[in-house]
């Protein structure tokens, strides 16, 4: 049949055209012919990072969270700029007093100034969040990159290890370890325990990222140019795997702060001598029915901090997400 159709077309006798299908040639001035595949020299040059930065700058989520995070960092570094009161100076005579001049949030059960405790508590939460994230990213990315890059039995062993750690929920694992160090230790105790159970999710993501960029053609191209596998790893694979790692690092920073607060709330996180939001919330919980505001202030500070980091994570994800970039 197809043969027939062809022969019908190729026949010398031209078929008469149907109305509306006559020969039409557009006037040249309507669509001036352009050079084939010319480069638009006017457009500004953008690297992936510059592009991501431009997207970020226009994202209100980023601006709001950025300002919040900057503010939180300043509070954590220089709490004395924001309050002159000593958070550990408590006097029972002020117990549960309302707000007064210089003490806007009033006093808690022990008669400590809530406002200054909230300000000074920032440092503990933020340092746990940042330190944990740093350790998790370094360890997780390293293990993940090695597993993804080497493959074979190294990958199998490391992946099983990740599976084992994955099977223990972060909070449960932390509780098991921390119950033995209830009264001792510092911020580092919490940081190390959170990192011990937190590195796996980053490792998993790093492994996936390395695996997918390892199989991209530019690595083969580089090898064919004479590059060695190690050179490929550092010059091509790792730079190309950074985006998802940065995204998970930003998002999980917030969740580590939550975990720290939760552990402190359970009384096995930061020692009670350290001023922390989780600890304050814990000691205020019995006041829920009578003085809910004592509970409210540290909770609010905690929520705003976490929200800022989660929003930042969302903004960074939007800017770096390969799915939104391939368009």
């Amino acid at each position, binding site marked *: 049949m197809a043969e027939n159709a062809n022969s019908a077309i190729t026949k010398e006798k031209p078929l008469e055209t149907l109305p*509306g299908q006559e020969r039409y040639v557009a006037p040249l001035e309507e669509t001036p012919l352009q050079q084939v595949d010319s480069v638009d020299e006017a457009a500004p040059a953008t690297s*992936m990072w510059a592009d991501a930065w431009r997207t970020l700058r226009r994202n209100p989520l980023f601006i709001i969270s950025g300002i919040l995070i900057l503010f939180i960092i300043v509070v954590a570094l220089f709490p004395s700029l924001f309050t002159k009161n000593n958070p550990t100076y408590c006097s029972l005579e002020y117990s549960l007093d309302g707000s007064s001049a210089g003490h806007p949030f009033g006093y808690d059960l022990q008669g400590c100034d809530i406002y200054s405790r909230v300000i000074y508590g920032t440092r503990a939460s933020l340092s746990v969040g940042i330190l944990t994230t740093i350790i998790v990213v370094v360890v997780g990315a390293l293990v993940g990159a090695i597993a993804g890059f080497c493959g074979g039995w190294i990958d199998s062993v490391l992946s099983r290890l990740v599976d084992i750690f994955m099977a223990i929920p972060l909070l449960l694992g932390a509780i098991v370890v921390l119950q033995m160090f209830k009264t001792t230790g510092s911020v580092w105790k919490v940081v190390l325990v959170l990192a011990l159970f937190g590195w796996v999710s980053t490792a998993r993501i790093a492994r996936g990222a390395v695996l997918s960029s390892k199989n991209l053609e530019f690595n083969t191209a580089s090898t064919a140019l004479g590059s060695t596998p190690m050179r490929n790893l550092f010059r091509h694979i790792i730079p190309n795997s950074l985006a998802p790692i940065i995204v998970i690092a930003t998002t999980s920073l917030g969740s580590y702060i939550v975990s720290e607060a939760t552990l402190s709330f359970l009384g096995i996180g930061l020692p009670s001598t350290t001023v922390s939001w989780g600890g304050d919330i814990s000691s205020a919980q019995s006041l829920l029915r009578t003085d809910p505001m004592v509970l409210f202030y540290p909770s609010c500070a905690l929520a705003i901090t976490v929200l800022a980091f989660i929003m930042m994570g969302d903004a960074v994800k939007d800017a770096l997400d390969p799915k939104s970039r391939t368009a």
Partner: protein
Amino acid sequence: MTDEKKTTMNDSSADAMREQQLKSGPLLEVKDLQVDFTSDRGKAIHAVRDSSFSVYPGQWVAIVGESGSGKSTSAMACLGLLPGTGHVVGGSIKLDGEEIAYYKPKQFVHLRGSKMGLVPQDPMSNLNPVWRIGTQVKEALIANNMDVSHEKRSKLSKALAGSEVEVKTEGDETFIGSKELPDLLEAAEKQLVELGVTGTKLEKTMAKFREEWVPGSETRWRVASDLIKAGVKDEDAWYLAKKYVTGSSMEDRIAGLLSEAGLPDAATRARQFPHEFSGGMRQRALIAIGLACRPELLIADEPTSALDVTVQKKILDHLQMLTDSLGTAVLFITHDLGLAAERAQHIVVMYKGQVVESGPSLEVLQHPQHPYTKRLVAAAPSLASQRIISAKAHGEENAVVMEHRVDEKKLKTSDTIIDVEHLTKEFKLPRKKELFKAVDDVSFQVKRGTTLAIVGESGSGKSTVANMCLKLLEPTGGKVLYEGQDIAGFKGHSLLDFRRHVQPVFQNPYGSLDPMYSIFRSIEEPLRIHHIGDKKSRAARVKELLEMVELPESVMQRYPNELSGGQRQRIAIARAMALNPDVIVCDEAVSALDVLVQDQVLQLLNDLQAERGLSYLFITHDLAVVRQIADDVVVMQHGKLVEHGTTDEVFNNPQKQYTRDLLDAIPGGKLELGLDL
């Protein structure tokens, strides 16, 4: 389903069809259509501007153009399926005289499937992976309340069918059911025996019946006419047909549709999932879905671009047969001029969102008038009849010499630069014991300063050969010699030296450049790896290379994501040229590019060869491109070498059937176009 029966387009019926088309007027009429997309910043981007074209019942109309020309957008506007922010802002789209351009989404639902069907472009992404193939066909039937026991015919095919067989009543269009089929066959055999048909003739006739009487596809009058042709009396034939052909079930109809689209063993296949299908099979399923509700108009958006040429030909032949017999009009979107010339009666050429030329396809392509069409026709590889000759190298005096010549001086050192001997590569497949032979005993030589093309379809092992020649894969058996030395022995310094002389250009212009590297760094990378020159001299070299591939210097600070596919491919060539190699291995280097850009890159490769005496190992699936660039050809199939010869030998006098099939499948290969050029 024999060809004679489907042949509705013989001379007399062509006239009948024309008459019918004139009477009914255009089925689809697009006038001054304008489609806009809204950018992130709320700016309107004009994707289609003032485009007009029309499709008559039963006609194949092709829209051709490069990517971004607005051809798909125009077609999707007709279906009300514009992606993202796309919307019609002006003009009119009339279907059967009814204005549909400004229909609401709900109104379109009634048109889709039953009036207009779609065969989409990419078979891999157009079937939902979680539903069985049959279910996805069924959805179409149910959505349009199709009567699965009867054929539905277009007005046109009804009018045309009248001239062949008399179709008296609705009942004559009833399908065979799988339940009644055995009884029908038995009765037919009995009838034939009564008529005195015996022996091989009986067997033959029955075999023919068994093959053709597909449940859910073959209708009562066809059964009757088959019986009559076999010698059964009219009365008896109709009696049998009426008694046993009483309508099909949903399952029968689904299987019938799939087998009409050319899917073998359709009833079983219908129960499988998309991932169990090859690309070609998925495309057939999509054709079955597109035609399931017997639309008047089928919009086929590059329906076979993702497939091998031989598969493409088979599927298009089948589609054409189906649409002709059903009287379906086809709006066919393609970037391939040869395909358009071969399949469509009317052609519409689009460029930058506008129709630049339209008319009867052969006339337009033989005598193109718009400069863009002229350019397209000139660049179309499928229409080229000879190798590109680089004017640069040959100079004016040689411009008359219509033959590609090799620099005599270079030939002195040694005739062959790459020698492949009995190359074999086996892979272990997951969950399978036996090894898979991707390359099986392949031998050939690349002569210095010439191009050897390896042609084959997907899975032929051609890229594996390329990777072994580049020492990116170790062969299981056999060897590759470069300048007489076995490359398997290269290590450390000698390997680095080999890499310096043999460079690759890969298929995917999006993947082969590191997105994090600026163009400058990308081109500079090989110089750094081989510790050549200092900062200043490397920068100078990069500039020189960019000039060589005809890109402006300003490109240096840019990143790959800002450049087009063709530009990236030129960057990849510049990078490959950085170390002054002797051999470049091009693995499908131009396959992903638009015709014009492809032509440009091929010219560049050819110029470089002429200037520098490069040798190319050119891997491609496109025989038409081979004609343009290669001196020698190796044809591969299933890992084995099928044919090896000079380009002229292989094209003019192919020795093997497979090569002939490949040549036959080049779309429009036999048509002479661009006569005025």
